[in-house]
């Protein structure tokens, strides 16, 4: 998979106003910039996600300042609740200017 693609998992049935878990994985090398190339002995330049926003219907749910010490192909999980159906949008950017977005529809009953 290409760098920056994300996979989001939400429960199939979501009840109104009840917290549910949102899990997602982003494909990214997450190079911290402190590692050395074993062959050349030079530092591998940093390349990791720095900011991540989770929005629901345009409202900010969670904001993360991500450091280089999060594992490669990072996994995140948060809880959230809502009274209405809508779109969950996850947007993130890395220190090399890459910007990506991923949207998921959420239906409550």
């Amino acid at each position: 998979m290409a760098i920056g693609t994300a996979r989001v998992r939400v429960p199939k049935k979501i009840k109104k106003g009840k917290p549910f878990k949102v899990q997602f994985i982003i494909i990214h090398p997450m190079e911290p910039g402190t590692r050395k190339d074993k062959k050349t002995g030079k530092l591998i330049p940093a390349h990791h996600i720095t900011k991540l926003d989770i929005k629901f219907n345009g409202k900010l749910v969670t904001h993360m300042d991500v450091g280089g010490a999060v594992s490669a192909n990072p996994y995140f999980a948060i809880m959230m609740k809502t009274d209405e159906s809508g779109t969950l949008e996850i947007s993130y950017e890395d220190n090399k200017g890459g910007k990506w977005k991923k949207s998921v529809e959420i239906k409550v009953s």
Partner: protein
Amino acid sequence: MMNRREVLKLAGTGVLLSTLSPFVNLSFSSEVEEKFKKHVGVPMSKVKDGSDKIKLKTPTIAETGANVPVSVDAKIPVEDVDWLMIFVDHNPVPRVIKVHFSPMNGKTFFATRIKMAKTSNVRAIIKKKDGSYLQALKEVKVTIGGCG
């Protein structure tokens, strides 16, 4: 055979080592404290123990430091939480991630997977909206480091 001079030399180095070692330990822990202050913004003494409220889940032994699952589940209403930070004492960059919650989260919960350079304390630090700090701490033993 050992003569008088050699015996004295040996004793001398022994004394030197034993007097030096407490200083070595001191500088080591203060280094962590310095990093803590830089990244968290307050000295370690201002952060209270919140292990009864913050449930920090980590493995006791991680086979590889490249992928250590960490999850935080706090019994603090999310409305009162300003942010949550995962802090690893002996990582080159100890501040792993800072998460800002909102009331829409419903629950103070966060999980991720982190890299660890070596055996170290993993801390979950929560800043509450009233300005107080709480932390939970766990030691994770790492067999193979994951930060180079």
